[in-house]
């Protein structure tokens, strides 16, 4: 018997989509642990998102403190560990976002907890399936410590549905906030009106063959026509054609949209690791021997310069008939 503590990221009064996936994982884990889900919101202004979190979790704990204006692993990890103890948690979950990946191992060490990263499936209360070797194999691991820390993958768990009746919200004190000398300096945000790459229904990605950043404009037209997020291969981000946080792959974002366009991408293992969970994959490449065609559901062997504008025109035609 133990509860499951779900660290939830939020923005203003809303939970982030990553938090809803985490709560879905947490429900499965709570069943296995014979306890209940406790959602944890930390940060200056966290109280504002408490009511929204209570729609999805029977119990919400909010730690709202002026000293927590910016996320820092140093200040957040001790709070997560303390709340976990106070709530009798035997499993702590944080989605494998850049924040979750930074925070969760630090929490695990504070609790001498074993950790399973990037979990794709819960197989039992202490047993998890997770990709290894850049997604070329799946390992089932058993974590035998009394408390377990897990980072579930957002792409593997559908957003939790609201509860029939909302849960309760309690607040907890932050205690002594000590950043150990670390400071948040600034965030250079990539501003975009497009959906988040991590939970977009459609993703349009370009690779080395796009040649330069200017050429991505035509892909952005396609993306905007479909309400899609933009992505890229490591070759394109390393060459500075597009921002680094567009990178899809083993070391970038892991995506699993309904529809994924890979344009002028060869399909290196590293890239495939980030997108082969997509439901439908379309590859456009002038070289029919590229490995991308082995994972694509539909392949077009053509130069993107010709194929993409034609694709845009054809989709516009289709939309006009509906």
């Amino acid at each position, binding site marked *: 018997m133990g509860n499951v503590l779900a660290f939830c990221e939020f923005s203003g009064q809303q939970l982030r989509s990553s938090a809803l996936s985490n709560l879905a994982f947490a429900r499965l884990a709570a069943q296995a642990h014979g306890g209940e889900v406790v959602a944890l919101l930390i940060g200056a202004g966290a109280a504002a998102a408490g009511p929204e979190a209570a729609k999805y979790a029977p119990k919400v704990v909010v730690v709202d403190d002026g000293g927590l204006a910016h996320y820092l692993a140093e200040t957040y990890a001790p709070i997560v560990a303390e709340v976990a103890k106070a709530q009798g948690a035997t499993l702590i979950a944080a989605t494998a976002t850049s*924040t979750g*990946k930074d925070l969760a191992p630090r929490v695990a060490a504070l609790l001498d907890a074993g950790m399973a990263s990037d979990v794709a499936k819960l197989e039992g209360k202490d047993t998890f399936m997770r990709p290894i070797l850049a997604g070329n194999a799946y*390992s089932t691991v058993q974590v035998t410590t009394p408390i377990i820390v897990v980072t579930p993958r957002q792409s593997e768990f559908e957003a939790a549905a609201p509860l029939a009746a909302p849960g309760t919200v309690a607040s907890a004190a932050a205690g002594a906030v000590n950043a150990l000398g670390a400071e948040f300096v600034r965030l250079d945000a990539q501003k975009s009106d497009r959906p988040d790459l991590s939970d977009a229904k459609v993703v349009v990605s370009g690779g080395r063959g796009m040649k330069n950043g200017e050429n991505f404009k035509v892909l952005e037209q396609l993306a905007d026509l479909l309400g899609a997020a933009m992505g890229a291969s490591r070759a394109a981000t390393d060459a500075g054609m597009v921002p680094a946080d567009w990178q899809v792959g083993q070391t970038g974002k892991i995506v699993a949209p309904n529809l994924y366009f890979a344009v002028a991408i060869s399909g290196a293992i590293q890239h495939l690791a980030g997108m082969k969970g997509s*439901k439908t994959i379309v590859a456009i490449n002038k070289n029919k021997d590229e490995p991308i065609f082995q994972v694509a559901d*539909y392949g077009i062997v053509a130069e993107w310069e010709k194929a993409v504008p034609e694709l845009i025109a054809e989709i516009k035609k289709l939309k006009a008939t509906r």
Partner: protein
Amino acid sequence: MKILVPVKRVPDPTQKAKIKDGHIDLTGASWIVNTFDEYAIETALRLVENGADNTRTAGAEIVVVSLGPDEAAKELRTCLAMGADRAIHVVCSDAEIDALVVVKVLQSIIAAEKPDVVIMGKQAVDGDANQVGQMLAAKLGWPQATFAASIELSADKQALTVGREVDGGVEYKKVPLKSVVTVDLRIVGARAVVNGVTPASHNYSGEGARLPSLKGIMAAKKKPMAQQKLADHGAQPTPMIKELSVVLPPPRAAGQIVADIPTLVKKLADEAKVL
């Protein structure tokens, strides 16, 4: 500045994964220094050298540490040939360790070595776990800067400003020395590491970590490599995380090459029903 760089030997990721008796078959595998750890060595070197004339800052020292079987000495020699000064090899089998054991050993080594900063890869490319750096920082009570794409050493040489690749942009975080930094791919960019010594006009190749030179390989043979055991650091060979089984993912069903764009759009709309 004294920098400690923990490294892991991993099977070359370009080899095809094979399964034997429910686990990855590593018979005959070739091994390399984990790519991210190689980048950590490169980062450490760039922090303590003048990149323009290849001279080293006086008093700088880079110590590499690895936990692994006897064969892992080869990967440690590679790190020494790149330019690290000395190596510590904690000899153990891979089955005897997990992240918590590794952290316990590193914590003990750091207590003895007293480095100014620990720089390591953000994850190993075999297990892809991305845990040890953060766990180690927590155990030491040190701050952490994970997923570093850039590092700038402050003028007083007492702090690092680290550009971290996060969802939605780049976050800059300042940490004092006595901290743990884990590096991401772009840390090997042409000007990603700024140490106040290398001229601002100097561009590194940006193509990844440096290859050991012939001179470096010869020099590495004479550099010290200490051999230690888990027990020397109070660690037990009892991992708390057990791998029960490994499977290969089912292959995707074969796709089709479609003749033209109108056919593609029709299939996406009617067959896949995604438009």
